């Protein structure tokens, strides 16, 4: 779950990381008043959950408060990579002598936190690593043994930084390592960390991601930062269809019938489970089919859940038929899904045999499930028909459909 820059900085402030003067502006007047308090040149930065702000024109500079309202109006409506701005951060703009890069993340291969440091900050770190590998250090550290500042010192010194700069950078970098572990972050990044011409070191820009699964442990922090419990902070805002999908999954605690993602095709998909859904979605596309949605069912959902999910997908404008498909199931019961899906069709006023293009869920309780489908004349197949072939049957039926 990504934090806005101003939230990341509020978290840094709690830990006394050095920050420039500044404040969040939610109106054009506020932008001017924050700038007035700062005094001198300022930078206005769109608060948006995406990188690439500078390129999009969502970062502007002003000599003083007078220009700020107009710049605020310019920046706020700009969407960066499909993300809308929430507010504008107004901060002091001071002459920078040097920029550093600091980032802490997880290394899934070593299963350890890893600290990346470079004395060539401000630009794309992957480019620096490629062209100037001696200016980037990569240091793994333990998540259970006590950590001390020497890890940060060694990482910084490895890039050739020495003298007073090394001693000033060490506590800042060490604090970021501690913040990373304390708040279950998946990323804690400061880029750039600037040395100003007046000798101060300050965090110019920062970016923090908290693991969604750990939100429950950090309720106090999230409340303090004003992060709402329903904010998903995904790559794009959820659609009304996706929000309705989440509600379906919440009807009871039995199994999963959710993770609905909207697409603009005509073939509704009632698919599962985690890996099976990815496999089936690919298969439908490979056959030239146009999925109306992605979803996942699994963990033995109730009849009600399967029924409500079916109704939701059938209610989506443009959906002509649905394909009900899963890998060989072990824990989910075929008969329960069959009953739920058939019920969903009937309650939507559709004939299951017309609207279900194919039913391919083999596995536990399949005989009972297939009996139900036979009764309603729905075409089904067992494990002798592959997931890929089943997707092909569904897509073929769409070709024959007249709308």
């Amino acid at each position: 779950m990504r934090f806005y820059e101003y939230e990341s900085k509020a978290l840094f402030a709690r830990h006394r990381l050095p920050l420039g003067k500044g404040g969040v502006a939610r109106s054009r007047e506020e932008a001017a008043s924050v700038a007035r308090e700062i005094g001198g040149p300022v930078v206005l930065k769109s608060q948006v959950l995406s990188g690439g702000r500078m390129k999009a024109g969502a970062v502007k500079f002003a000599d003083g408060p007078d220009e700020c309202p107009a710049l605020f109006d310019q920046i706020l409506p700009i969407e960066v990579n499909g993300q809308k701005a929430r507010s504008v951060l107004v901060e002091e703009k001071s002459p920078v002598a040097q920029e550093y890069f600091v980032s802490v993340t997880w290394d899934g291969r070593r299963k350890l936190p890893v600290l990346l440091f470079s004395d060539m900050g401000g630009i794309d770190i992957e480019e620096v690593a490629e062209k100037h590998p001696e200016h980037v250090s990569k240091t793994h550290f333990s998540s259970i043994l006590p950590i001390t500042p020497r890890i940060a010192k060694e990482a910084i010194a490895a890039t050739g930084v020495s003298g007073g700069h090394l001693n000033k950078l060490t506590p800042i970098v060490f604090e970021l390592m501690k913040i990373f572990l304390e708040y279950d972050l998946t990323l804690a990044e400061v880029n750039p960390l600037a040395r100003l011409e007046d000798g101060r070191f300050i965090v110019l820009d920062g970016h923090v991601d908290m693991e969604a699964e750990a939100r429950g442990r950090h309720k106090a922090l999230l409340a303090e930062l004003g992060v709402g419990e329903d904010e998903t902070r995904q790559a794009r805002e959820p659609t009304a269809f996706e929000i309705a999908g989440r509600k379906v999954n919440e009807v009871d605690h039995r199994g999963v019938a959710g993770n609905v993602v909207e697409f603009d095709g005509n073939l509704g998909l009632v698919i599962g489970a985690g890996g099976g859904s990815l496999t089936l979605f690919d298969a439908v596309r490979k056959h030239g089919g146009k999925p109306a949605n992605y979803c996942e069912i699994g963990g033995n959902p109730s009849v009600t859940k399967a029924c409500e999910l079916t109704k939701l997908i059938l209610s989506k404008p443009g959906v002509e038929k649905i394909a009900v498909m899963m890998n060989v199931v072990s824990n989910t019961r075929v008969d329960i899904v069959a009953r739920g899906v058939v019920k969903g069709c009937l309650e939507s006023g559709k004939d299951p045999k017309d609207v279900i293009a194919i039913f391919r869920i083999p596995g536990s309780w399949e005989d009972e499930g297939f009996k139900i489908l036979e009764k309603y004349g729905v075409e089904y197949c067992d494990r002798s028909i592959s997931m890929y072939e089943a997707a092909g049957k569904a897509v073929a039926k769409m070709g024959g459909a007249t709308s």
Partner: protein
Amino acid sequence: MSILITKDTRFLIQGITGREAVNLTRENLDYGAQIVGGVTPGRAGRDVYGVPVYDCVSDVVAAHGKVQGSIVSVPPAFVKDALFEAIENGIEIVVVVTENVPRKDVAQAVELARLRGARIIGPNCLGIISPDEAKMGGVGGPAANTRQAYKKGNIGIMSRSGGMTTEIASTLTAAGLGQSTCVSIGGDAIVGTTYAELMPLFEADAETEAIAIYSEPGGRMEAELAEWVKANDSRLPIVAFMAGRFMDEMKGMRFGHAGTIVEGKEDTTSEKIARMEAAGISVAERIEEIPDLIRKRLNRKGEN
């Protein structure tokens, strides 16, 4: 032989009185598992299908002697402590079925496991099966379904999806290819044991002749496997199936498992496929191509 577990592996279940764990107990017992005890704090003295319940892992060990394995099926917030308890009581292999465990908890338990010489499989997995020997976890479901999909043989399976482990096994079985050991390694960003970490075990297992893997977008696990295969000149032909190809165009969106997200170029399926193919791993477009690809690779080897 098989890897990780045999019919003699004695294990316990942490969180045994939970709804899912009760099913697990039934299914594993029916498949012949040696479940010596279960743990649910405060529920000592009860039993689940005849398996005695204790408050602590140390009580199980005290009552039954050496226990090799444990299945952890407790709510996400309690997984780390359950893992620490298992490892500190001498358990050598722990299968974590729980979903939604924060990765710091997993990483911390993995570090402790390394210090103590233990191994973690999962989280967010269905466990391990060596057909006709034993299973440890929900893989394959009820024993009758498990026997239908899995047959003893010479193919190892490693999969980031529990359900797809069974789909692949079922496809291999239908084609007359049995399995040595199948491991559902888990769908999270950090898992206890990766493909590359299982490879030395399969490599050393005389029964295993080839490997089938199921993989997805996200993470560096496939790159790690490709490097391992090249560096160790593996004797085992590997056939991989890559799901989620559509996600390459959908940066930042999370589909399927928690570990499945495309953030950078290295997370994409096209990049992973290229790396695996460069290491000599065959990549199947469809699950049903796996048996033929394996046979082709095995025959070619026979000709040399």
